């Protein structure tokens, strides 16, 4: 039995929060993605497959909606609205996500939801949270990363601030949305009442700059982009024979570093007793970084990581997706998840973040085709006659 089995979650088609539903679906919750009849926006976003139907081509959709059931409904119509309420009465939780502080068209807001259904746990992810002067401001991933403070720290000092790639602002907001809803459900266990759980995308991003906050509070330092000129010892990204290697040294790495340098005949300068003083190391960190670069330059990324890690140093290859797909660590652990792509081929997705008692919880299905579960949910579960469903479909309601 999967850990969240028996939990029913209705997810509104909010682009910013889909990953929250995916996490809950991986853990065994039944997540029902409710899309408008023309499909959620994510279905039109690149990367796109060349040869599949227009509504199913998006690999964003394949990733973000993996494991969910899919129904269609236009809640802006009276019939659609009535049907939505019938569905919500069967749900434990509802996920709402918005890019402008409002609700998806036709959807009731969090307060109306908890008022109408007192047991419902409502998770609301908005760009800036539900209160405060910017509550109705809009944000895309890039804008949220700027507002939350990560962009000002990312990249090189002589470039503009940069975002963290792969929509990490949205992923972080969604991770907090999943956590919030689970915490809300735990609250319901204690109070017997539903609750609104609120997540701000800006604050979710701000949570990823926690160390930097304290630089201003305790030292009055405004932090900027440091590129590769980190203040810390041995933090470099070095070119190697076939790519890049990232290194990071902490104080107890010193002897391991010198021994590694010795292997390449580069240890001589570091044998001077002055290097025993951490302050001296810090003042002359350029020499340490240069030695690490020289060591990496003679090795492949994999060799550098293996040799460095054998000396217990923090050395890691810089991977792109092709390397990830064939990394023996991930492959032998059975990490990846095979799903059927909409064009019929087999696609690979990342697996689960967790193993529970050795087993990664996995969803039972891939991302839904548009309206895939309409009959199953509207007719078989909620008792709608098939003719009624056909009529609603004809009227553009489902």
């Amino acid at each position: 039995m999967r850990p969240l089995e028996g939990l029913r979650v209705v997810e509104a088609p909010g682009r910013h929060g889909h990953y929250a539903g995916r996490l809950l679906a991986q853990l065994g919750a039944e997540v029902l993605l409710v899309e408008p009849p023309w499909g959620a926006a994510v279905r039109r976003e690149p990367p796109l497959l060349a040869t599949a139907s227009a509504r199913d081509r998006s690999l964003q959709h394949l990733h973000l909606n993996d494991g969910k059931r899919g129904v269609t409904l236009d809640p802006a119509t009276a019939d659609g609205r009535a049907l939505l309420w019938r569905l919500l009465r069967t749900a434990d939780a509802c996920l709402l996500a918005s890019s402008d502080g409002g609700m998806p068209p036709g959807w009731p807001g969090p307060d109306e939801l908890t008022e109408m259904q007192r047991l419902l746990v409502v998770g609301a992810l908005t760009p800036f949270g539900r209160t405060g002067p910017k509550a109705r401001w809009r944000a895309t991933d890039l804008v949220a990363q700027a507002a939350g403070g990560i962009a000002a720290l990312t990249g090189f000092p002589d470039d503009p601030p940069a975002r963290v790639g792969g929509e990490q602002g949205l992923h972080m907001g969604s991770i907090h949305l999943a956590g919030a809803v689970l915490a809300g459900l735990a609250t319901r266990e204690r109070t017997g009442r539903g609750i609104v759980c609120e997540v701000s995308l800006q604050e979710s991003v701000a949570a990823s700059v926690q160390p930097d906050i304290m630089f201003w509070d305790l030292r009055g330092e405004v932090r900027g982009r440091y590129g590769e000129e980190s203040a810390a010892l041995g933090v470099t990204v070095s070119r190697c024979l076939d790519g890049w290697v990232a290194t990071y040294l902490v104080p107890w790495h010193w002897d391991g570093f010198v021994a590694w340098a010795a292997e390449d005949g580069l240890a001589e300068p570091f044998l001077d007793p002055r290097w025993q003083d951490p302050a001296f190391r810090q003042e002359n960190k350029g020499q340490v970084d240069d030695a690490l670069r020289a060591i990496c330059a003679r090795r492949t990324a994999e060799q550098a990581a293996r040799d460095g890690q054998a000396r217990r140093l923090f050395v890691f290859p810089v991977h792109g997706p092709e390397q990830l797909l064939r990394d023996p660590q991930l492959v032998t652990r059975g990490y990846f998840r095979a799903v059927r792509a909409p064009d019929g081929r087999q696609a690979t997705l990342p697996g689960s973040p967790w193993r529970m008692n050795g087993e990664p919880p996995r969803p039972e299905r891939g991302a839904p085709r548009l309206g895939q579960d309409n009959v199953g949910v509207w007719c078989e579960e909620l008792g709608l006659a098939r003719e009624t469903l056909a009529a609603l479909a004809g009227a553009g309601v489902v």
Partner: protein
Amino acid sequence: MGGALPFTGLRVLDLSWFAAGPVCAKVLADYGATVVRVESLARLDSLRVNNPIPEGYEGYNGSGYFNNFNSNKLSLQVDLGHPAGLDLARRLGRWAEVLVENFAPGVLHRWGLDYETLSRENPGIIVVSAPACGSEGPRREYRGFGFGIKAIAGLSWLTGNPSRKPVGPPGAFPDFVINAGQALVGVITALRARERTGRGCLIELAQYESTVCVTGPAIAAASLGVPRRGRMMNGSPWACPHGIYPVRGADRWLALTVTTDTEWAALGRVAFGEPWAADPSFATLLGRKRHEDDLERAIAAWTGRHEGEALAAALQEAGVPAHVANTNRDLLDDDPHLQARGYYRTLVHEELGPCRYDGAPFRLEGVAHGPFRAAPLLGGDTDTVLRDLLGIGEDEIEALHASGALQ
């Protein structure tokens, strides 16, 4: 306010260090859990002596880096290398409902603090283990945290200027939300399952695997041979303009994105009078993409003449997503929205006085969440934990101090 905190009474043993484990446990503390952070001078969390530390401060309690991840916790100082210290840790293993750790694989087993051993006497315990790459597999011995994980897991490949080194996201980026947050999702899920089964669970969150999870589209595209660019700075294949542009002031910047032609028209109203704003060849995404570089330069020249906050407000008013690139200073002192929401908390630290702390990463409406108490001093709660949580008598506590186990 003042509704029920969901985790009041939950007993958490935090044996982790650095960031991912401590941040996960911190959120449980924000929502009511009693969290005992185990520390020792014999194995000091190096964050305790890492900057940011106030100028001139000497000691183990001045690091904002450490303090921010450990607010609301109790610090128990105990040397697990000492037999009496290890015995205490095992008693805490029987006391705890949740144990969070990020030792290298095998370390807990050696101490008899692994899930298998603990769950024999404490079947409800939930152990969260966060090794760098996993407890088995060819990289099982790998050590490291966010600094290296961002590289190996693909985030550096996705981030920044394509013509420069892939330095990736700043610092230990994956630790704070991606790994701490997904660990938290796992813990609350296991607590829910425990209600039904009476059994706890061993949750392994390999930091590498957890971070690859958020690169899904790139993985899927590579598996199907769909072309996809890696690093592309702030650009977007389906939006234009989409970037971070200079505004008035030293190192001041504004992010703005135009995803639809409606938003483009709205931007044009704010930039009324600019030649590009009225140029019909930019009216569609295709047209804007065709002259993207020219357009980006023209927009940067325009934004550069404006003050960031005012321009962001005007763009938002018109319906264009925009915001200044907040610095750490802006977040704490200059963003009126965050101030109105009270995201950051001021808590009085025993040695540093009033300091700002991150609030909880989400809010349960009507529930007054933490953090309520500043980070503990190293070992500041040792006697309290032994006496009040483990029920150890004063004589035995004194003997433990004398034995050297509490260092």
